[in-house]
């Protein structure tokens, strides 16, 4: 049993954890340790072999493994210590209890950064009726089986959910010569990014069935068919209009759940909407020595955002560990008209620009986004269109943040549908 002492400990060596650790080091934390349960760094990017990462952060288009490798090289240059093959079990005051093949490891820390990412929603989360044959995968599991292990997963595939991973898998499977028969989405609009519909579905003539869902799965040993029905405006299936699609494989791309079991051991307050911790602009939770970033905080659609956000988390974690982060009074940050959630959920009225990340409720055109406090509108921005599948960002200047009063409300108003 070996114990460690460090200024900042980070849980998870994915893009969020690595960016946070590097930033903590650059901002004065002497010893920074990352705990990672897998045997490699990179997190989910290891299996995201498609391009499209880094356009904002690096100004060039990278694949997932390339993006991850840049950060793991930076981590090594900055002398970040990695404990790989090590699982974090529990946060006990200012000690992180971990386990690996050597036994239990206690890491005493000044601050801790949560960067554990997400896991996928499964069939059990959706409670789809039917039999329980082989051939049902979450999209990310299928992605790992194909891209990392080189397996084939089926011959005729139906995908439930129009999330990004599902659409990217539709293209991957099509390139493998697998027939993707349909992508089925319960909402009347796309869940993922528009660019993925273009280059993953349209390029391969894969039909997208909006306002539809799967109401039955048939098959004894292997999936034989799924039953698909349109849904009404309350998302209730219209059973009279149901039809079947023959297939041997069903992929589920129906959302991600931040993996916050560890967070709960420290009794950190969680948001009911994002399912992540509630934080201020420093990514600081209600336990001032615990910070959170990346998908464990809220589900992102771009890793570039994750990197920026996590650098903030790492920086302020380092400052707090050094006793240099004064936590002034916080005001609430709320989702107003047309907005599903805003992260951060709280703001310290202090100097320094504040990035507000949020998702709108419904797609629309000619959208005006506004940030107001009790005195009136502080900031507004017009966009040609917005969709809930894309995270929006507004940056409040330090001057305005410092003088904000009452509560901040972020709203979105569409002039067109």
């Amino acid at each position, binding site marked *: 049993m070996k114990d460690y002492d460090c200024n900042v400990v980070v849980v998870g060596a994915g893009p969020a954890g690595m960016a946070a650790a590097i930033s903590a080091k650059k901002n004065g934390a002497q010893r920074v340790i990352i705990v990672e349960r897998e*045997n*490699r*760094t990179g997190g989910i990017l290891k299996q995201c*072999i*498609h*391009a*499209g990462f880094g*356009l*904002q952060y690096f100004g060039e*288009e990278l*694949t*997932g*493994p*390339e993006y991850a*490798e840049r950060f793991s090289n930076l981590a090594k240059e900055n002398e970040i210590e990695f404990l*790989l093959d090590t699982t974090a079990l529990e946060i006990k005051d200012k000690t992180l209890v971990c386990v690996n093949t050597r036994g239990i490891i206690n890491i005493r820390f000044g601050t801790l950064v949560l960067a554990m990412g997400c896991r996928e929603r499964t069939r059990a989360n959706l409670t789809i009726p039917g039999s329980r044959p082989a051939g049902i995968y979450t999209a990310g599991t299928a992605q790992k089986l*194909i*891209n*990392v*292990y*080189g397996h084939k997963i089926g011959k005729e595939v139906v995908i439930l959910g129009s999330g990004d991973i599902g659409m990217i898998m539709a293209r*991957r499977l099509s*390139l*493998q*010569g697998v027939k993707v028969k349909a992508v089925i989405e319960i909402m009347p609009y796309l869940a993922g*990014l*528009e*660019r993925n*519909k*273009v*280059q993953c579905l349209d*390029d391969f003539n894969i039909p997208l069935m909006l306002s539809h869902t799967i109401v039955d799965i048939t098959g004894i040993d292997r999936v034989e068919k799924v039953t698909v029905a349109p849904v009404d405006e309350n998302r209730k299936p219209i059973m009279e209009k149901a039809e079947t699609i023959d297939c041997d494989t069903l992929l589920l791309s129906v959302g991600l759940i931040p993996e916050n079991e560890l967070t709960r051991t420290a009794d950190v307050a969680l948001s009911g909407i994002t399912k992540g911790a509630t934080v201020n602009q420093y990514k600081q939770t209600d336990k001032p020595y615990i910070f959170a970033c990346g998908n464990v905080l809220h589900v992102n*659609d*771009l890793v570039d955002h994750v990197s920026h956000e996590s650098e903030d988390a790492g920086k302020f974690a380092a400052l707090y560990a050094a006793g240099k982060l004064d936590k002034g009074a916080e005001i609430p940050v709320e989702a107003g008209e047309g907005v599903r959630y805003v992260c951060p959920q709280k703001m310290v009225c202090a100097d320094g620009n504040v990035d507000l990340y949020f998702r709108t409720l419904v797609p629309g055109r000619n959208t005006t986004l506004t940030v107001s406090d009790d005195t009136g509108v502080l900031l507004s921005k017009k966009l*040609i*269109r917005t969709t809930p599948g*894309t995270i929006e960002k507004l940056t409040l200047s330090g001057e305005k943040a410092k003088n904000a009063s009452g509560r901040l409300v972020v709203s979105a108003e569409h002039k067109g549908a």
Partner: protein
Amino acid sequence: MKKTVTCTVCPNGCEIEVDYTTREDAALMGYGCKRGIAYAIDECFEPKRTFTSSVKITGSDRRMMPVRTTAPIPKDLLIKAAQAINSVTLEAPVKCGQVIDDDFLGTKVKLVTTLTLERGDAQ
């Protein structure tokens, strides 16, 4: 001819209206940047995509090595590209960006690895 192109260069996904008869006289509306102009015109005359996949690798604990083209290739070649790399097997160690083919399918575009992998066990 008129065509609406959803730009895939970056996540903004601009909807670009192209009115054209030839490459030279194409009139564009709705683009957000220069890269969008080039993309939209290509999309009307010769659509291109970056090809990514993975190929077999021996000598490491990871069985597949991710690969990409260093620039977009004609969209019509994607299926052929996927078939062409089935016969490729690499051997660790491999550096990220190592060239597998410097004229992939005669496109003058390189096919390269996208991951550094040491020989033997995980890093």
